[in-house]
Each structure stands twice: as structure tokens, then as C-alpha cells.
């Protein structure tokens, strides 16, 4: 019997040199759920995905995925668990020298000994799921931004992962592509029974599809809850973020010395 919890993050700290990025993060993510991690640019959201994927190591605390503490794994064990993770990068990160078909087939060819005929069927099924079976012969350069993101989605589900991470999947998409990607994430999560983590700052689109939301600000979890709790929240930070207000707990101005002092007004008046 598999445990309900897929990912457990406890007291996670991370710093680039002296610059602290994440401070004491605690999260629990259940199987089969879509979880959003929201926060302003530079709040450490993407770093959190990197910590889950094991591409960076925490300063302290741990990330536990399917019962394994990620930063304690050796390289082989890490690569083994990564085979069960899919990741959708911000702009797709398709291999530009391979066709759409070969991009989706990439992991199957690298990690399995499946015969080419079976790989062909599997790739076409994955592409069909994202509506791009007809585009299998195209090169990534011939795709629009939304199509590239869908191909990358098909590639990330190639080996039926238990976890898919999406790094800003909605950035730079038109409204139609945006809702296509949104509903695909939800449908694929339900159909495959995977867990999805979406790092995003697109509030409206993600609140439609997710089960749970974490807000990160200044390296700590500022708020969390279901989409409904979040929409109705009166907490100043959540309110500012959900409604896109210019000023609030997240200040408009970058920290600086007093305005009058910066303009030398105090000296002149003295």
C-alpha cells in the first residue's frame, strides 16, 4: 500500500552563498493532486523545484520524495528517481536538433529497450493526448510557443512519471493556449494519477485547476490553502497577490535610503 503523501518537505533552508533564498519551508503534497506554488519573481519558487529534483542541495532540512530523502541519494539513485519525475521547463526546453517525435521518444530510447514499433505507438499516444499527433514530424523551431509547451508536456509524461513539475507553464502564452495548457495539466494529472506541482504567478488560471496553493514570499510560506480559501482570504499579502495590487506587503519600491536624503534636499535646506 503506497502512502498518500508523495512529497514531504521539512524545515528546508537554502542559500546561494550568503544570500538566503528559502527559510524553513514545510510542505506536504499528496498523490494525485495539483499543487500550485505562487510568489513574486525571485521569491525562490524555481529553487524549490530544483531542490525537489535534486539539482541543488539544501543548506539544511530535507525533501522526501516517495520515501527517499533527495539530497542523501548518490548519483545513480538520484537518476533512478528522476526517471519517475517529469519536468516542464519555462519555455519547453525542447531539444532543437530533434523532431517533435524524437523529443517525445528521447527518454524511451535512453532508458528502455522497447522496440521501435512500440516506441512509435507510445509517442503517438502521448502526442495525441496533447492534441499534436499531426505535428510529430515538425522541428521545434516550427512550433508556436503554446505548441512547444504542449510537446514538452508530452515529453515529460513519456515514462508515466509519478510527479510532474511545471516551471511557469503559462508564461508568454495567448489566452487560448493558456487555458489549453491549464486543462491539459488537470486532465493528465487525473488520467495518469500523478502529482503535479505548478510554479506560477498566473493566479486566475491556476486557481481554476489546482487543489492546493502555497504562497512564498521572502523565502517563507506566507499563506496556504485551497483555491476557495485563497480567493476569499483577507490576509494582506494574499489579497495583494490575488488581486494584483501595486502596493501592499510587497512594496512597490526597492529598499533605498530616504528619498529626500537621496536627492540631497536635506543638505540644501539646512
Amino acid at each position, binding site marked *: 500500500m503506497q502512502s498518500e503523501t508523495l512529497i514531504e518537505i521539512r524545515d528546508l533552508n537554502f542559500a546561494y552563498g550568503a544570500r538566503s533564498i528559502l527559510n524553513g519551508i514545510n510542505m506536504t503534497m499528496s498523490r494525485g493532486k495539483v499543487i500550485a506554488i505562487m510568489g513574486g519573481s525571485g521569491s525562490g519558487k524555481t529553487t524549490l523545484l530544483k531542490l525537489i529534483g535534486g539539482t541543488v542541495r539544501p543548506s539544511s532540512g530535507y525533501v522526501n520524495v516517495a520515501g527517499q530523502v533527495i539530497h542523501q541519494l548518490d548519483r545513480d539513485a538520484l537518476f533512478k528517481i528522476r526517471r519517475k519525475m517529469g*519536468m516542464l521547463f519555462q519555455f519547453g526546453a525542447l531539444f532543437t536538433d530533434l523532431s517533435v517525435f524524437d523529443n517525445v521518444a528521447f527518454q524511451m530510447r535512453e532508458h528502455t529497450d522497447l522496440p521501435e514499433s512500440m516506441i512509435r505507438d507510445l509517442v503517438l499516444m502521448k502526442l495525441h493526448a496533447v492534441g499534436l499527433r499531426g505535428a510529430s514530424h515538425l522541428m521545434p523551431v516550427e512550433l508556436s510557443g503554446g505548441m512547444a509547451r504542449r510537446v514538452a508536456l508530452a515529453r515529460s509524461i513519456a515514462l508515466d512519471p509519478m510527479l510532474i513539475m511545471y516551471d511557469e507553464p503559462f508564461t508568454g502564452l495567448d489566452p487560448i493556449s493558456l487555458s489549453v495548457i491549464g486543462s491539459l495539466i488537470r486532465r493528465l494529472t487525473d488520467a495518469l494519477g500523478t502529482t503535479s506541482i505548478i510554479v506560477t504567478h498566473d493566479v486566475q488560471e491556476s486557481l481554476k485547476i489546482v487543489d492546493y496553493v502555497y504562497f512564498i514570499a521572502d523565502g517563507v510560506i506566507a499563506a496556504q490553502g485551497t483555491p476557495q480559501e485563497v480567493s476569499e482570504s483577507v490576509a494582506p499579502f494574499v489579497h495583494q497577490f490575488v488581486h494584483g495590487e501595486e502596493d501592499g506587503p510587497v512594496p512597490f519600491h526597492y529598499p533605498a535610503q530616504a528619498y529626500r536624503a537621496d536627492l540631497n534636499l536635506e543638505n540644501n535646506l539646512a
Partner: protein
Amino acid sequence: MLNRIVANIQDIGHRVIDSVWRLGNASRFFILVLLKSGTCLRRFSLVIRELYYTGVLSLIIIIVSGLFVGMVLGLQGYETLQKYGSESAVGTLVALSLVRELGPVVSALLFASRAGSAITAEIGLMKATEQLSAMGMMAVDPIARVVAPRFWAGVISMPLLAAMFSVMGVFGGYLVTVVFIGVDAGSFWSQMQGAVDFRFDIINGFIKSCFFGVAITAIAVYEGYDAPPTAEGVSGATTRTVVTSSLVILGLDFILTAFMFRGIS
């Protein structure tokens, strides 16, 4: 004043430390590429694909340049040698210059600018567009899958391209001196045969081009992999590949020549 002097000395210190650090990092990377070459040597189709891009696509520039260099050598050699009545030795001059020096060196310089820069730009852009990170997240090592095949393809193509350059150069020399000017074909070829030694000239030229091949592709893959993931980063890395490889080729050539041709009269 004192502060400025101290700052300048510190700056020199930083640059030296930085260069040493980069050299160490590059050596470590080079060893890593060798250690992770197993995959691409087992799946040789990966190398063959890169051989096409680095080797076959460099053929045109190598063939045309070789032809013209040979023609110029023939022309200049004939002009000088005929003053002493020994124009029949022009074949020897062309062949020895090409096989010992110009073949390996000029083709290596062309290879660095044609294929080395392309390798750096490609790997750098793959890094900038997160393709290498994506590969890592798919549990595929980018050094084994992307870097090593390109490295070996470069190492294999370089000596073959240098040989092609020399062959085309000799043909160019023949074309100018025998066909156009009218030097006797028999003496052109027989003098060349008599003077060019397989062990000392051809093998040494081949060894040189192997060294150049390793140096150019090692620099190219390292610069690409180490490039900052931005437009300026990749363009800077591409420039560094061409400049560093060219200097290394010329420096290595001097060292190798000093070892190989010492004591040969």
C-alpha cells in the same frame, strides 16, 4: 595613490587566480568527458551523427583552402626555385610544406573557426535554453550524451581533414606548376616521392593533427558548457574558442615540431 597601486596589484592577482582556476576547471571537465565517453563509444551512431556536422560539413572549406594554398605554394616555390634552375624540386617543396606544417596547422585553424565555434555555440545555446538541464532532469547525463559525442567526432575528423587538406594542396601545386607552367610531371612526382618520408613526415603530420583535434574540441566543448546562459555569454564563449584554439594550435605546433624534427637534416 597607494590605494590605486594596491588595487591594481589586487586586480592582477585576481586575474591570475581566475585563470588558474579556469584551467583547473577545464582539466577536470576534460577528464570527466573522457570518463563518460563509454556511452557514446558503445552507441557509436551518436558519434557518427556528430561526425557529419563537424567533419563532413567542414569538407568544403578544407578542400577549397587546401587547393588554393597548394596553388600559391606551387607558384611561389616555382618563382624562387627556377632562379637556381631547380624548378623540378617544386614538388618536394609543396609536399613537405603541406605534410609537415601547413596541412595540420592551417586545417586546424580552419577547423577551429568552422567546427569549434559551432560546437561552442550549440552547446552554449542548449545550456541557455535549458536543454541541458532538461536532459539532466530526465536522468540523462548531458556530458555523456551531448559533450562526449561531439568531442570524439572532432578528434576523429581533424586528422582526416588535415590529410584531405594536404592531398588537395599537392593537387593544387601540381595543377599550377605541371599543368599551367609546364614543369615536367615525372620529376615533380619522383622528387616528391624521394623526399617525403612516411615515418618522419606523414606520421608526424598525422600526430600533430591528432593533438590539434583533441585541443580544439576540448576547448570548444568546455567553452560551450561553461558559457554563461545569455546571448553575450554564448557569443563571448564562441570568440574565446576561436582565439584560444588558434593560439594553442600555434604554440603546440612549435613544441611538437621541436620534438619531432630535431636532428633531421
